[in-house]
């Protein structure tokens, strides 16, 4: 009997049950809409058929709706991490579970696609989403190649077959020290290699038929890689370049200008030093606000005030962890950005509406407004505070159960002595 229960609950944990969108009214909370309505004290959020039906102070609770009393609570959109390895890694140092990079492959791997490796049944998804993160960008890491490949935007209710939101969402490349290392030891060599790849992609795009006839010069990339780069050289697909040193960011900006690329800077430790150029070029920065160690000679300008300085200068900033297991701590990172000068609203925006715009999904995500997907979190306090937890997490209108492998371990070992021996506890 016990075995049966365990099996059933395991199935629940893995999310194989069919969750149904219900009608829910979240009443009485402080609602941060991130939209034109701003913050509403004592507001109501109505969720129906997976979408936000209404938000406001005088919104009627639909008949039959489940009512959640959010008095004294805080309601926000679900949060988004703009650079993760979620689904690509289960245990970082266990190679068989790590699909973040093609680290044996020294070709360009522009056609590498994270979607091929994402395990949507990873235990990291429940662990991450019960803490209020409902969407994420999954990015490849650089292997041996300057161009790592293609990333995707995903929903974190990964038990749904339509978990994949946007793919490809971006192309990823590295410059700076890492890029130099990949290209033979100099930053100039990395730029040369990257230009070579972009030139080839442009030439191929204009001469596909000739290429297929064998009537073009040799390219440094394979056909699939050249295809993958087409939307990049057309300026349609963002090229996310991981780069930290101010001068390297300037070099990336020059490259983007020369090739009309849609550039996004990731990492950007010293991006605050080139804020003006970033604003002028309308290039957003994906930032980890906690990364303040001068841990390399390209990161000497790292500072906890980077987020505040960029925001003040008018640079578009979205937050990222670049992590998998610790994605849930992105709230803490945002809280520290506030502690070091960023306005609170801007920090919450860097986890919601700003990434929504960067990733082109703001038509249905990023704010609490009627008609948008019901990614809604009810927090027991300030969402950026380290002692706060979500009490309810809705993704596309469905409440996520507070059930993870970690909570089960906790409950199994809460009482070390007990009638039921540990191995028989659920």
């Amino acid at each position, binding site marked *: 009997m016990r075995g049966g229960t365990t099996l059933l609950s395991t199935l629940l944990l893995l999310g194989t049950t069919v969750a149904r969108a219900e009608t829910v009214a979240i009443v009485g909370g402080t609602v941060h809409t991130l939209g034109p309505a701003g913050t509403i004290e004592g507001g109501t959020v109505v969720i129906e058929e997976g979408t936000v039906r209404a938000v406001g102070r005088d919104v009627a609770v639909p008949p039959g709706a489940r009512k959640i009393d959010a008095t004294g609570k805080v309601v926000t959109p679900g949060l988004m991490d703009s650079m993760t390895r979620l689904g690509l890694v289960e245990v970082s140092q266990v190679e068989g579970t790590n699909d973040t990079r093609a680290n044996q492959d020294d070709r360009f791997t522009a056609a590498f696609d994270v979607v091929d490796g994402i395990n949507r049944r990873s235990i990291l998804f429940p662990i991450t989403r019960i803490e209020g993160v409902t969407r994420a960008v999954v990015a490849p890491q650089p292997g041996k190649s300057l161009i790592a490949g293609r990333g995707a935007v995903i929903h974190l209710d990964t038990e749904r077959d339509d978990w994949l939101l946007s793919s490809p969402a971006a192309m990823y490349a590295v410059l700076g020290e890492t890029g130099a290392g990949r290209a033979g030891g100099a930053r100039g060599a990395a730029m040369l290699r990257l230009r070579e790849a972009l030139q080839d992609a442009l030439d191929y795009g204009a001469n596909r038929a000739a290429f297929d006839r064998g009537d073009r010069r040799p390219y440094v990339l394979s056909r699939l890689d050249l295809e993958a780069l087409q939307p990049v050289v057309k300026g349609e697909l963002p090229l996310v370049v991981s780069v930290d040193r101010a001068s390297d960011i300037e070099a990336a900006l020059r490259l983007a200008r020369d090739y009309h690329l849609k550039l996004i800077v990731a990492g950007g430790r010293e991006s605050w030093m080139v804020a003006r150029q970033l604003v002028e070029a309308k290039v957003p920065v994906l930032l980890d606000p906690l990364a303040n160690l001068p841990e390399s000679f390209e990161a000497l300008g790292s500072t906890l005030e980077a987020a505040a300085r960029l925001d003040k200068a008018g640079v578009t900033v979205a937050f990222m962890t670049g992590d998998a297991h610790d994605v849930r701590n992105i709230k803490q990172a945002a809280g520290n950005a506030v*502690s070091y000068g960023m306005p609170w609203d801007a920090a919450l925006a860097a986890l919601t509406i700003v990434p929504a715009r960067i990733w082109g999904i703001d038509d249905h995500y990023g704010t609490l407004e009627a008609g948008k997907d019901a990614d809604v979190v009810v927090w027991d306090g300030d969402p950026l505070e380290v002692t706060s937890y979500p009490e309810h997490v809705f993704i596309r209108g469905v409440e996520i159960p507070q059930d993870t492998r970690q909570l089960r371990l906790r409950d199994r070992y809460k009482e070390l002595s007990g009638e039921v021996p540990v191995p028989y506890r659920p």
Partner: protein
Amino acid sequence: MSARSFQPFLALPICLVFLSSALTAADKKTAGDRPFEPPGLYASTYKPLPSRPTLITNATVLTAAGERIEGGSVLLRDGKIAAVGRQLAAPASTVVIDAHGKWVTPGIIDAHSHLGVYPSPEVDANSDGNEATDPVTADVWAEHSFWPQDPQIPLALAGGVTSQLILPGSANLIGGRSVTIKNVIGRSAEDMKFPGAPYSLKMACGENPKRTYGDEKGRAPSTRMGNIAGTRKAWAEALDYRHEWEEYQQKKDAGKDASIPDRDIEKETLLGVLDGKILVQNHCYRADEMLEMIQVAKEFGYKIAAFHHATEAYKIADVLADNGICAALWADSWGFKMEAFDAIRENVALVDHAKNGCAIVHSDSALGIQRLNQEAAKAMAAGRRMGFPLREEDAIRWITINPAKALGIADQTGSLEAGKMADVVIWSGNPFSVYSKADQVYIDGALIFDRSDPARQPMTDFSLGILGASGGDQ
């Protein structure tokens, strides 16, 4: 103020007491002429910076001795905590700080730091934390790698850290001596060495040693059983060495001809542990493995002060408490390797919850050390979420008095009690909030860091002039 000039010399007698206690007559029964360390050398040359009598008033005071005092005061005098209470009078010429709305705690102590041995920038030239050339390197001392100009040191200070244990890495089964430092930049490790603090020995089990040697160097250990075997061999050899000295001592005492044994730097440290002078800090993740290491400790007659990282400590919280072993833990780091797969957010709270449990929140990270208060806050919140009635006055112990216990310095620092070192932090608000920052940090009564006064913010030589006027954090 003139009395301040005496201040630097206060540390000296303590340090001498320690050295002499290491070589007292009582010890001679076991140690005899056997050297432990050259007397007077490598000793602490730390001198507190000048201080003025300071009265902090109107604060919420967490003493880490169990108390929370609203509207509390702390009086710092002659480098010590002179008094803690509600209504303290300010003696003449005392600096009075109105800390209304602020919180005061003991200085934060990190039981697991690699600052100075793994400095920033992380270049190979400065990477000195693992002597990964042999699985047993009890002869190396972290202080001999320690770079006092590591720009990460002032960052930790801005996070309220007043003392930290600098350990060698975990590549080796026995990685070498660790050193406790005061977070006051000096010209050498000795200049920062916590006066009177015992040494610690870094030990490691699990994945790191077996990977470093078995996978990467093709030699033992390559398995967990190889780890334990290598560790036991080292201790057995230490016992042989002790025996050699005992035989020598017996012959000498009997007036017989005896040749003095060769010095063995490695064994001197191992016997320091068996003599109870050096504490054992054991890197270990898995519950079953910690239980094995307790067996090894019992076999050779030493005590483990703390298991470090101990991601599965919650599974054996009762055993750890019964054996008087602390667990130095992360709040929520997990999944980066197999032995961290079962880590849970409630680990700290569950270890703390066991009767006589000793939970520590540590960093093992130049990032984490900057906000151990936040890490403790997350651990506290996780405990509350599972129904434990944890208060700030409970959780503060995880980053103050409990690490002080594990480092053997709890009689000198770690709580706000009269007579202890005046290692104190004034926080802008509740330290268990992401929005609170260390406004002022006092070490031995001296104002070492003041967030509102750039002149009171130390900067390492390395950081000087690199970025011009508007640089990074360091």
